[in-house]
């Protein structure tokens, strides 16, 4: 309260005038402002209608009331004091001015007035009456008060550390300016409202109420905070609701704390509610008009500020997390601006390059680029600035990095480029030291070369050993021949049987040597690449085989012309067809040769028979060197045919596998059948013979098994 007083320097000298009371009444009645006459006890003797209007009652109601009884609770004492000062014995004041809040009698609203009290003396110069002129300050004061409220609030929360501290300061300020005793905030989380740690109490005695609150959770529509959460409208609970457990779940604690009024106000932003504030007013401050509206107004302003603070915190938290992650990474994570100056530098970068963040931040990132690459880097940077696009962005490239000590090492860089609305063109890169990987790659390549060299050596050895074995073999066979020619008659039956066995074994050994040489030769010959008509090639082989195996029926489908080494394909088909005939288990086999091209350009060749088949568990084993499923016999193969085939196919980058011949294993077929499928990479086929439909492989399509006559290009029948 501002109280100003002026001491009159001189006493008014006595004169015969109209009695003081009469004069005072005249003054009051004529006054343009609200005015009244007070006696020495401060009672209103006379008031004008303007004052009655100001205080919300008739003039008659004011008469006889002490001024203090009209004052707002807090201003009672200053009001009494002002009157006392005027009428004080001895050194009384002639005039007292004070700002005084009164409560309107009709609606209890505050009336803010500038009261100017002047003393009237009687004929003897003694204080007799006082005349009060009242200027209505309500509008101006209220505005000023609110302005200070907001200003203080903004200043306070502006300095707050985080959104919680900000809420705390806001509650405190609101409690102070609206004379609430306690305030707390309910925040929604996981679908319920719970108490935020932020709260304020003007004095002690609220622990129970606070404790009861923190234990509570409100769903939408539950309790006063939940209700406000749902409606978004402020809510006030007064006497007697606030003490009714039916209406207010914390009525007991509120009563104990002396609470008479609860105000529940939403803290919202245009995009939605962020919290509900709950304010408690004690009995002595209760019923203050306009309080709820004022708090609501403040919170409307506060919502967006808190929201912004929270967003800042979330951003800072995520930045912090990003920094933690980048620092924890072994990779170097760096970013740079459009001019190529470093803007961030992770722990990983510190370890990798030997520069600490504070040493390189702001410097050009050429600090980690070897001298000879810097021009290239500058050109690339200029191009990105010009076009906004980076050739490197989105891909992983291998570069050379430069350490602080001048040493270089291989790095793998993945880079991102974006146009930042605040900082412009920006780059971020993840760099990985790939020294170890490079070393491992080189070691691998070296051991692969070593393996290839030793393989080649082994093949050469096998080749020359096999050749050396051939020479005695030739002699052995020659002498055997002449032994038989010259001495068959002397050896007798038993002797001739032994001779036959020796001859069989020797021939078998010869085949073994032959196949060994073939196997070792597959990888050795460079192989001329030329156009090979597989159809003609297969027909040639089939003609030879058909002569030796008259009962076997060969079916040759449509085969392409490929670019390849003709020897390799001759050997492949010779071995596959030979195997089919040799291991079919019957004389009247049907052997089909076919080819298809896959959509991706790969070529699939197939040789299928309807013989006894190969059990699945043995299908991998048959590709091994010297592997045969039947017992070794001089009459059978050497077991190297499929090994040679696999080697040929793998050298071409393809694969070979054994399948059931589904067509042959159909009911009624004599055997299970075997289909060898060779898959060769795209790009080998030059042409397919024209004018004929591409046949599905026999093995894949059961309906093709009893093939219509003429479908097959080449049929050899005994």
């Amino acid at each position, binding site marked *: 309260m501002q109280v100003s007083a002026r001491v009159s320097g001189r006493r008014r000298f006595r004169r015969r005038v109209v009695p003081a009371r009469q004069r005072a009444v005249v003054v009051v009645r004529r006054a343009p402002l609200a005015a009244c006459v007070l006696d020495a006890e401060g009672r209103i003797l006379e008031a004008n209608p303007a004052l009655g209007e100001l205080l919300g009652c008739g003039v008659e109601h004011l008469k006889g009331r002490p001024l203090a009884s009209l004052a707002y609770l807090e201003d009672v004492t200053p009001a009494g004091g002002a009157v006392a000062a005027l009428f004080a014995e001895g050194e009384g004041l002639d005039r007292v001015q004070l700002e005084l809040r009164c409560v309107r009698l009709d609606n209890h609203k505050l009336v803010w007035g500038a009261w100017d009290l002047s003393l009237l003396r009687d004929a003897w110069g003694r204080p007799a009456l006082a005349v009060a002129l009242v200027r209505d300050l309500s509008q101006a004061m209220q505005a000023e008060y609110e302005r200070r409220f907001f200003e203080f609030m903004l200043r306070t929360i502006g300095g707050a550390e985080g959104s919680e501290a900000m809420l705390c300061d806001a509650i405190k300020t609101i409690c102070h300016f609206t004379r609430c005793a306690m305030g707390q905030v309910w925040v929604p989380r996981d679908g319920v409202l719970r108490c935020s740690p932020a709260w304020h109490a003007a004095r002690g005695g609220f622990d129970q109420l606070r404790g009861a609150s923190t234990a509570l959770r409100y769903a939408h529509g539950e309790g006063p905070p939940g209700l406000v959460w749902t409606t978004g409208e402020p809510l006030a609970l007064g006497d007697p609701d606030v003490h009714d457990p039916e209406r207010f779940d914390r009525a007991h604690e509120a009563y104990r704390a002396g609470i008479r009024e609860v105000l529940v106000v939403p803290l919202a932003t245009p995009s939605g509610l962020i919290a509900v504030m709950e304010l408690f007013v004690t009995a002595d401050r209760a019923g203050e008009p306009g309080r709820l509206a004022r708090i609501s107004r403040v919170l409307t302003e506060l919502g967006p500020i808190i929201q912004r603070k929270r967003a800042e915190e979330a951003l800072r938290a995520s930045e912090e997390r990003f920094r933690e992650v980048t620092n924890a990474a072994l990779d170097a994570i760096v970013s740079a601006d459009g001019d190529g100056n470093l803007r961030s530098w992770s722990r990983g970068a510190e370890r990798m390059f030997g520069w600490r963040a504070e040493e390189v931040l702001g410097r050009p990132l050429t600090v980690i680029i070897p001298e000879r690459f810097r021009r290239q880097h500058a050109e690339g940077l200029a191009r990105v600035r010009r076009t906004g696009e980076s050739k490197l962005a989105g891909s992983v490239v291998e570069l050379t990095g430069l350490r602080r000590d001048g040493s270089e090492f291989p790095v793998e860089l993945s880079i991102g480029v974006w146009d930042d609305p605040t900082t412009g063109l920006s780059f971020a890169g993840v760099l990985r030291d790939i020294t170890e990987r490079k070393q491992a790659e080189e070691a691998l390549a070296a051991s692969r070369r070593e393996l290839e060299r030793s393989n080649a050596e082994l093949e050469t050895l096998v080749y020359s050993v096999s*050749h050396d074995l*051939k*020479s*005695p*073999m*030739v*002699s052995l*066979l*020659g*002498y*055997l*021949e*002449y032994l038989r020619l010259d001495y068959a008659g002397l050896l007798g039956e038993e002797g001739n049987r032994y001779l036959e066995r020796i001859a069989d074994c020797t021939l078998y050994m*010869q085949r073994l040597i*032959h196949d060994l*040489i073939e196997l070792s*030769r597959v990888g050795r010959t460079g192989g001329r690449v030329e156009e090979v008509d597989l159809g003609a090639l297969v027909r040639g082989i089939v003609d030879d085989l058909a002569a030796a195996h008259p009962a076997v029926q060969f079916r040759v489908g449509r085969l392409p012309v490929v670019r390849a080494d003709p020897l390799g394909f001759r050997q492949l088909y010779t071995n596959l067809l030979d195997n089919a005939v040799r291991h079919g288990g019957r004389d009247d086999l049907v052997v089909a040769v076919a080819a298809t091209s896959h959509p991706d350009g790969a070529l699939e060749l197939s040789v299928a028979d309807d013989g006894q088949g190969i059990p699945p568990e043995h299908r991998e084993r048959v590709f091994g060197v010297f592997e045969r499923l039947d017992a070794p016999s001089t009459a059978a193969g050497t077991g190297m045919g499929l090994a040679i085939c696999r080697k040929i196919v793998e050298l071409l980058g393809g694969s070979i596998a054994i399948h059931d011949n589904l067509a042959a294993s159909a009911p009624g077929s004599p055997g299970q059948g075997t289909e060898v499928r060779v898959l060769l990479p795209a790009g080998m086929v030059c042409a397919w013979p024209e004018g004929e439909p591409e046949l599905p492989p026999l093995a894949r399509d059961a309906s093709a098994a009893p093939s219509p006559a003429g479908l097959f290009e080449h049929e050899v029948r005994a």
Partner: protein
Amino acid sequence: MNPQVTPCGAGLSGGSASLRVLLVEDDEDHLFLIRRALHDLAGVSVTSEIARTGEEAVELLRRARFQPGALPELVLLDLKMPRVDGLEVLRRLRAEPDPALQSLPVVVLTSSERDDDREQALRLGATWFLCKPLDGARFRAEVQQLAIRWAH
């Protein structure tokens, strides 16, 4: 290094034709078997000389061209020999200035199934080739064909 002249027995049919052959072969067993095959030829009487190394063969042929009737009418040349192998012998023979040596019929003997050995031999001027093994009717039939072609 005297050339060893071994007269072979006359053919079974009474020696109506004769053939002088130089055998170039380092393997004694192969040598024996080839000579046996030549010996058994029907209707051709074969006289064979033997050289056991490539150098010896070239030397023998160079000298033989100055003695009338000493130059063989057919050379059977093994490809696989140590140091100077059959191909080298062919190369040197075809490089001789004497047209008699340049055009001398040379049949190479090879135990390799590889086409490229044979092709190379033919490119170097081999007249024909025979495949070892040396046993069986096939070999004998082929030798018979050769003998009939060059015998007189």
